[in-house]
């Protein structure tokens, strides 16, 4: 049976990875208070694929630091027309 983990336990266990969690308890300051780990991966596309393997709400986040070319990835300087 899948184990419920706290945010701190997940961050400590899977540094520098995408994590996907279900049945989570929300928290305003952290991604979640706790939840059931669905999977963890260094590949963002794989993390998105995991989201499709179950129904219901999910939490997804990256546990590592940002890369130096992060701004370019995100289109941080945008205008919408």
């Amino acid at each position: 049976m899948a184990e419920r983990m706290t945010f701190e336990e997940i961050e400590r266990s899977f540094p520098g990875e995408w994590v996907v969690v279900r049945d989570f308890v929300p928290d305003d300051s952290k991604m979640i208070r706790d939840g059931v780990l669905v999977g963890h991966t260094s590949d963002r596309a794989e993390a998105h694929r995991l989201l499709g393997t179950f129904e219901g709400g999910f939490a997804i986040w990256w546990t590592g630091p940002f890369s130096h070319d992060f701004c370019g990835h995100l289109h941080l300087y945008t205008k919408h027309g």
Partner: protein
Amino acid sequence: MGSLPFTSDDGLVRVPVLVWGCGRELSSLSFVVDTGTPRTLLDVGAAANLGFNSERAVRRSRVRTAVGSEEGYIVVVSRLRSLGWERGTFEIACHQLAATAQVDGLLGADFFAGLVLTVNYAAGTVDLAEPAPAASPG
């Protein structure tokens, strides 16, 4: 609500955002606070997993970047919450973020409209609050 810690030590303000999906209940995603983008933006992959796709778009969206422009679409989420504040019937633009992006969206200026956003880099905290009432004359 008081100041909240942001989870980045490299200057970018990463915060959790709760989104009520379409046919999928509450989900929690990681966004970067970006007052330089006028509209809150969500990655299309994450949007699809929330039940939003181009068929649910209310109109098209285009972002212009240093290397060109890209088409996306705008959807309306019933509720979106972050930093202790909630917006209802809120429009977000869905665009493809690079595969190597380490968040799933940008929390744009439209979310902060009418409020006071305070980022304290020294303390590593961020706060979103109502503006102080104007002082009465005299």
